[in-house]
């Protein structure tokens, strides 16, 4: 059972890593002027909810399977994702707003955020991998 949890987490984590990389690539494309803000933001906004769901599922899964340490590790990031999603002003077009993204260094902070998430997901990836192997051996 435990191994199934971790196998699922691992797959989910892989998806999240890919998503983070995608975010970084798209944002840097915008930074380098390869795409315009409008298309960049509509691309990214599409993936904000899947990312949120993907991460929340893992977090909840960890809570259910009583892996407290991993749950607590995931909790701040999951909270941040949800907070960010909820706090979008009513007039904005999503977490990434094309009219705001070039202002007040938002692009940079989005970039930083994506980088941090990538690092975090990589860390989780190895943790799940280790846990999965451990679980498989135990089984």
């Amino acid at each position: 059972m435990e191994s199934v949890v971790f196998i699922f987490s691992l797959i989910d984590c892989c998806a999240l890593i890919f998503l983070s990389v995608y975010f970084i690539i798209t944002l840097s494309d915008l930074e380098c002027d390869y795409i315009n803000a409008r298309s960049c933001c509509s691309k990214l906004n599409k993936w904000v909810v899947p990312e949120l769901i993907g991460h929340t599922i893992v977090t909840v899964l960890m809570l259910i399977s009583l892996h407290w340490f991993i749950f607590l590790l995931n909790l701040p990031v999951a909270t941040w994702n949800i907070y960010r999603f909820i706090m979008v002003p009513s007039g904005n077009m999503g977490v990434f707003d094309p009219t705001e993204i070039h202002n007040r260094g938002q692009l940079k902070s989005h970039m930083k955020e994506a980088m941090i998430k990538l690092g975090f997901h990589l860390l989780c990836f190895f943790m799940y991998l280790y846990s999965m192997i451990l679980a498989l051996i135990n089984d």
Partner: protein
Amino acid sequence: MSAPAGTSPRSAAAPARPPPCQNGPVQNQMQFPSGYGLHLENYSAPSGHYPQVPREAIPMQLDNQYGADYHPTCYSVPVQGVMTPSVGPSMLNTQQLYSRAPHPVESAGGLLQGGISSTSHLHTSTPQSYSALRSHYSSSANSSVASQGFPLYSGHYGMPAASSAVYPNLSYPSVSVGSPYGQVFTSQSLPAVGQFEETNAFSDQSTTVPHTLQQQVPLRYNSTSWSTSDFQSAQDNFSRNHTGSPARASNKINTVGIVGSSHPVSQTVQFTKPGVETSVVSSVVTSSVRTPAADHLNEPASVPSVTQPPESLLQEAIDSSSTTSSASPVLNNYDALEGGGYPETNSSTSSPAPTPQVSRTPKPFGYGYPTLQPGYQNAAPPTSAMQPSNPGHHTGFQQYPQYPGVNQLSSTLGGLSLQQPQQPESLRPVNLTQDRNILPGSPVLAPVPNLNSDLKKLNCSPDSFRCTLTNIPQTQALLNKAKLPLGLLLHPFRDLTQLPVITSSTIVRCRSCRTYINPFVSFIDQRRWKCNLCYRVNDVPEEFMYNPLTRSYGEPHKRPEVQNSTVEFIASSDYMLRPPQPAVYLFVLDVSHNAVEAGYLTIVCQSLLENLDKLPGDSRTRIGFITFDSTVQFYNLQEGLSQPQMLIVSDIDDVFLPTPDSLLVNLHESKELIKDLLSALPNMFTNTRETHSALGPALQAAFKLMSPTGGRVSVFQSQLPSLGAGLLHSREDPNQRSSTKVVQHLGPATDFYKKLALDCSGQQTAVDLFLLSSQYSDLASLACISKYSAGCIYYYPSFHHSHNPAQAEKLQKDLKRYLTRKIGFEAVMRIRCTKGLSIHTFHGNFFVRSTDLLSLANVNPDAGFAVQMSIEESLTDMSLVCFQTALLYTSSKGERRIRVHTLCLPVVTSLADVYAGADVQAALCLLANMAVDRSVSSSLSDARDALVNAVVDSLSAYMSTASNLQQSTLIAPNSLRLFPLYVLALLKQKAFRTGTSTRLDDRVYAMCQIKSQPLVHLMKMIHPNLYRIDRLTDEGAIHVNDRVVPQPPLQKLSAEKLTRDGAFLMDCGSIFYIWIGKSCDNSFIKDVLGYPNYASVPQKLTQLPELDTLSSERARSFISWLRDSRPLNPVLQVVKDESPAKMDFFQHLIEDRTEAAFSYYEFLLHIQQQI
């Protein structure tokens, strides 16, 4: 007009020139010849220092001087041998005077503008002294005071006063009148400056150049036989110059003709100067190089194409000097130099010299920098309008024509006065709590960047381009310390009376950063220029070598692009993604019951009918109409129809276009139908019962209609949209209007309008919103449609055609301006700045498409923009930074044009200098923009706190730098003395005020205005101007178009200034109030208002009658002068002391206390407490 002006002094000077060569120096150059003479006599023994001299002296001088071409040659000088000294002495002399100069000053902290500029002066004058030396030097020595000559001189050295004593005599008004940064430009234009990096310019100078140097130089001078050769060539040039005079005059006329938009010649001419200097210098150098070959006689002949250049140069020299008051002495010097030097310019290109320069380019500006510093500190800052130029210079100037003997003495005195450590005016500490009359009587002018006079003249007008700090701090740390915002305020599409328009097949731009060539680039040689933003060296294209202004070849630095900081290019097809679009106008009119009741349709249709022929456009201009209530109505205006056809689309959930074409029709072909429609429209809906408004669907339809072409959509809306997509609900709680705590709903309620605006922007369509409503209409949401599509927003609260005639009149006048003003389609704007600076936030109505590209579907002359910047990399090696705005647009005539503005500012290292250069108005406007963002993204109270903190932080930062001030008082530098007052005014502005009842829409509209108004208009909105107008006199009046416009002094905005027996005019930008006191002089009421007494003046008076009395004439001419200065016609409202409208007037008296806000004095105390 200016052409004759330019020629006449020249012709006068022409005959006079030969003498000046010999005698001319007497006044101006007195010391030189005499000094030289003495040197010659005294130090006849040749010394072994020869090789040493050029190495030490020349480099230093070079740093201060022109440069590029200069350097290598100078360096090569020792190698070249015999001729070297010819360059050497002149420079040396300069240099040594110079080296002395900064010293006493620096130590004394006094001022010395002449110091820096003197180098160039001296240099300029050298040829003259040569000539004097050669033929007449003994006589000139006698004639001058310098019978005492050198001893006296050296006596000066000992005294600290020496610096100033020397300058006035030598200073060269036409070159750099009172310019503290005499060398700035040149140093900037020296790409090769880096060559001499090892010998540090300024600091070393003082130590390495003892007086003895001066003595040595003349020796070499004598020993080498340079004078013959060099002089000869100089003479040749002179003669040529004289002959060239008539040709030159004709050139001039050509200049005007070609520029097209009567750009004044004088301006062009002044601008040319820097370029001239460089070339001159190079030529001087080359001559010395070549002379060893002893072919100096051939030189003039060998360069036939050169004959023209000296002429134009001369012309410049003359013109520029004619602009200053002292023409002739200056002129002589300059000519001498020009004449002597120029012809060899071409040969300089062939010399191997340039090559090393290029390789040495990395630190182009670094060198100039040290020179700046002392000059800057000592300079009386031009920032203050009160102190027109530096005193040091003045003394020299005035005493100038005096008898030579007196000259020295008085200049010594002048020097003494200079001795006193003088702080720049803008840094003078002002005790805010004690200074009750902080507001100056005349309008506050933009501070002038502390550049040398050449750059100042070239620099962009502050009306179009302003920076909050006219001295850019060197590092982000320094900027953080100053606690002032750094940003630019732009008004790029401003209506200009004169604008050089350039048609050329290639537009010269930097290859790496795409900067347009501008006056602040440096020409390394004739074939290469160095970008002033990224420092890349670019080639000058072949076409650029030909100057259409002078019709001469080989003068890239005299092209209009390089002479004007604001130019417009006619772009080629490279700048088009599609063929230029026609002017397309679509009017979307609300015809619901509410709108018909308000009666705006009549006014709009009437204005359109009147201005139909004045709509900007060409034969392709297209126009269309859509009306909407709960359905959307289209009008088929196809040519050939007998009358306009109305097509109603009632499916508002999925709006479609009833016919693909013939909804937007050619204005000229269907003019009759359009006129029919416009006259019929106001009456078509008179009996409508439809109260709903389907704005969203109408906008979607408009977008569909416009997307093939792009253009302008003008939306007239009178209520909250209540149907279909984009419907809104009332969010305002009237009870919260005067809340001091939370103001909600400043942001949009839905993203519908934003999305649609971005779609429009993508299709080059801008939506302008006219909101004419009496109730809450959620402008915060509606405004998005204009904000992001680069439109503009007009708001007429409680509009009614008969109940509110003032608003009706305003709409009519605004529409007139709106319909007829210039318009640019499918525009993009890019703001570039020198490497190291980066723009991180943009304010205004547009969509930021990529990091620095603003997409403007339409651009209008009344739109202002602001950007915030940060300093990413330290600007250590630079003395100047530049900003360039390029606006690419399609004119209404279907031409693709690029308007380029370039602004150049100095970099400073000390905090005091940063404060000295602060532009308080620009800073305030930028802060206002930031505060709007903050109140939308965070909350209004946050924004208010941030504003107060901005004042507190900057003043406390200033007070901590000036440690000698008493900490108990509130001190501000003079440049920031109005900062607290303006911030208080901003806090009491509709956008940010709390406590006073403010409707949400009013507040949001004020915020929209802050974001999109240019600085001049915004300042009036924030801090109105108050004048007393019942006693207008002609004192200080100005003349505009044959009218005498009185200039009453500004009054501070406080009720204490209002007297009951007076009448006051308050200019709030979009509205004028005339307040009449209870016991106002009856003669004023009778003569100006046309009523017998105070009691008979009606409550609602909106214009002044045209009475045939002097006071009426004065008042009217003053008011119309104020009106003319702004694009939108302000409404005039006469306010009697007891009328209810009085409150509107009194709320603008921002220095007074209100129940919810501080008075100015209380605010100061509050700030002091916080500090």
